[in-house]
């Protein structure tokens, strides 16, 4: 086994679980998420094998490839109209139905989130559903952690402005 391959296998071991969680936030299907992650690593390894070591193996590259694969897969499955109708070209988390909560407030939040751009929806859902911290989200989307924090803060502030009846979770 080559040194390159050993390094890559170690990269896989270190980042597999985090990438699966990331994929789950986007697609909400565990089998699909695992397939996406496997295909992502395969494509990363092929890029690595081009011999250009300037291509850095990191979560941003992995997340970018994973999203591209997800877009391709969804197009092939004919679901792009359903999933991308309000999100441009980027797949992102769809707020699923919560059988335990049919409240009007949740529906209002859903409508508010649908108005956000796809990258901001992704950032928001990675945080509140995926449990990722701004530093981790920053690695996925290729931004500074402070940028993520400001985006999250801005989204929460706007939600509060539209729904002043919502409590602060931290209070």
């Amino acid at each position, binding site marked *: 086994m*080559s040194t390159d*391959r050993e390094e890559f*296998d170690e990269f*896989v*071991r270190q980042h*597999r*679980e985090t990438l*699966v*969680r990331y994929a*789950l*936030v986007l697609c909400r299907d*565990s089998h699909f*998420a*695992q397939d996406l*992650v*496997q295909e992502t*690593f*395969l494509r990363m390894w*092929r*890029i690595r*094998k*081009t*011999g*250009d070591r300037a*291509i*850095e193996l990191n979560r941003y*590259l992995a997340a970018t490839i994973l999203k591209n694969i997800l877009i391709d897969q969804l197009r092939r499955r004919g679901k792009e109209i359903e999933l991308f109708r309000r999100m441009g070209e980027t797949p992102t988390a769809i*707020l*699923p139905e*919560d059988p335990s*909560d049919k409240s009007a407030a*949740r529906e209002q*939040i859903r409508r508010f989130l649908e108005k*956000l*751009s796809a*990258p*901001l929806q992704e950032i928001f859902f990675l945080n*509140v*559903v*995926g*449990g990722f911290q701004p530093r981790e989200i920053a690695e996925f989307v*290729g*931004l*500074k952690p402070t*940028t993520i*924090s*400001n*985006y*999250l*803060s*801005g*989204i929460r*502030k*706007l*939600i509060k402005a539209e729904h002043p009846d*919502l*409590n602060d*979770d*931290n*209070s």
Partner: protein
Amino acid sequence: MGVDRMFDHDARALTRQMSSMDSEAHLRSIIAALDADDAAQDAETEVSTGRDPTGRTPVSRPAAEQFGTWPDSELTQCLRQARQGDAASARRVAELLELTDQATAAAAWWHRAAAAGDSDAIIYIEGFRTT
């Protein structure tokens, strides 16, 4: 109820999905797929071109260009479009300048993008005021 609590159901469902997965089996499956890919490529190289004496596949320019020079390449492109008045490009310039620790220049572009009507930049500035 707060915003985060509204998503408790989704967060718990995701955690359940994660814990129900067989991590070891998934890892083995990935490693096996990588091995199979290597084996297939080795066979293809031998048949079609003869083995590369360095043991490496030739550099793929598109891959190198796409991932090797980021974020400089994207910044250059976005600056050009932002100067032509594109609001989303102006916001992207702000993000990339912030990423590369050029905070002062980034601040100017955040405001420029917001003034041009980019909704993400407006939300960012709203968030910045609270932090």
